[in-house]
C-alpha cells in the first residue's frame, strides 16, 4: 500500500479490490474454526458415555422396552453451555493476541439459545410421554417425527449454531462442511444394531460416533488448511 491519493478513473476498481482483500484477510485472521469443531467433537465423544451409562431401560417379558435417555438430558445442557463459553473465550483471546476484535458472540448466544431450546423440547417430550402407556406410542414413529427429533437433539442443534458461525465469518468452507454434517446427523444410521434389552443402550451409539468423528475430521481439515495458508 502507498499513501497516494487516488482521483484517477482507473483506480476505483483497485481501491475497491484492496478494501475487499483487506476485509477478507481480517476475517481469515479472526477465524478459529478448527478449535470450535475440536471442542464440539470432544463434547460429543464424552456424551456417548453419559448416554449409554445413564440410560434407564426397563424391558417387559414380551421384549417391549421402555427407556429414558437421562444421560442426554443431564449431560448435554451444561456441556454445551460450557463448550460455547470455551469457544467464545478462545476466539476472543486468540483474536486479541492477533490484534483484532472477535465476532464470535452471536454464535455463542445462538449456541446457548439452541441448547435451551433442545433442553425445553426434551423435557416437554418426557413430560408428555411419562403418563402414557407404551401402546399409546406406536413404533416406529412417523418419519417427520424422527426428523424433528434428530434436528432438535444436541447433535442437530450443534449444526444449526455452526451455520450461524459460517454466516458470521462468511466462511463458505464451514457452511459446506456444516451442510454435510447436518445431512449425516439427520439421516438415521445404526448399522443394524437395533435391538431389545441390553442392545437398546447401544442403539444411538453409532450415530453419535459418526457425528463426533465428522466434527473431529472437520477440525483436522480446517487446522491443516490454516497451517497451509500460513
Amino acid at each position, binding site marked *: *500500500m502507498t499513501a497516494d491519493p*487516488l*482521483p484517477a478513473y482507473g483506480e*476505483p476498481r483497485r481501491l475497491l479490490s*484492496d478494501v475487499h482483500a*483487506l*476485509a477478507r484477510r481480517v476475517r481469515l485472521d479472526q477465524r478459529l474454526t478448527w478449535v470450535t469443531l475440536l471442542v464440539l467433537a470432544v463434547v460429543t465423544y464424552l456424551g456417548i458415555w453419559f448416554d449409554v451409562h445413564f440410560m434407564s431401560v426397563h424391558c417387559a417379558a414380551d421384549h417391549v422396552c421402555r427407556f429414558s435417555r437421562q444421560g442426554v438430558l443431564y449431560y448435554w445442557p451444561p456441556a454445551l453451555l460450557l463448550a460455547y463459553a470455551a469457544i467464545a473465550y478462545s476466539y476472543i483471546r486468540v483474536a486479541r493476541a492477533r*490484534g*483484532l*476484535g472477535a465476532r464470535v458472540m452471536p454464535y455463542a448466544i445462538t449456541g446457548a439459545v439452541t441448547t435451551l431450546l433442545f433442553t425445553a423440547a426434551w423435557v416437554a417430550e418426557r413430560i408428555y410421554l411419562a403418563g402414557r402407556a407404551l401402546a399409546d406410542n406406536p413404533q416406529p414413529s412417523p418419519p417427520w417425527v424422527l426428523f424433528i427429533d434428530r434436528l432438535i437433539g444436541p447433535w442437530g442443534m450443534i449444526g444449526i449454531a455452526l451455520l450461524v458461525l459460517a454466516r458470521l465469518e462468511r466462511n463458505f468452507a464451514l457452511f459446506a462442511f456444516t451442510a454435510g454434517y447436518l445431512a449425516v446427523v439427520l439421516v438415521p444410521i445404526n448399522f443394524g444394531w437395533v435391538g431389545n434389552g441390553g442392545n437398546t443402550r447401544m442403539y444411538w451409539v453409532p450415530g453419535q460416533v459418526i457425528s463426533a468423528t465428522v466434527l473431529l475430521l472437520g477440525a483436522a481439515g480446517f487446522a491443516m488448511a490454516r497451517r497451509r495458508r500460513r
Partner: protein
Amino acid sequence: MTGAFDPEAAHPITGLDEVVHQRVRLGVLAITHEARRVEFGYLRTQLDLTAGNLSKHLSVLEAAALIEIEKGYEGRRGRTWITLTPAGTASLADEIARLKQLIARVETSDIPEDR
C-alpha cells in the same frame, strides 16, 4: 436537497471525501470495520507502513471523528486499539458506494479508461 447519493444528479467523484478517499486511510477504515477493533501493530503489518506514517493517517481520521483511539497496557506492553465511530462506518459505506458508482460509470461510458 437531501444527503442521499443520487448517481444521476452529480458525478460520484464530486462527492468523494478526501479524508476517506485515500488508499491508506480507506484501508484503515476497512480493516477496523471488519475487525470491530484493531491493534496498531496489526494495521501497520497489514498496510505495510512505518509507525510514524500510520500515526499520521490515524491522526487525520481521529481529527475527522471517524475513529477512536484507545491507549493502554497489557502487562508491561503498551497497546493502542482503534475502533470505528458511527460516522466512520457511514463514511466507509458512502465511499464504497461512490467507488462502485465510479466503476459503473467507467464501464458504461464511451470514455476510454486510460485517457
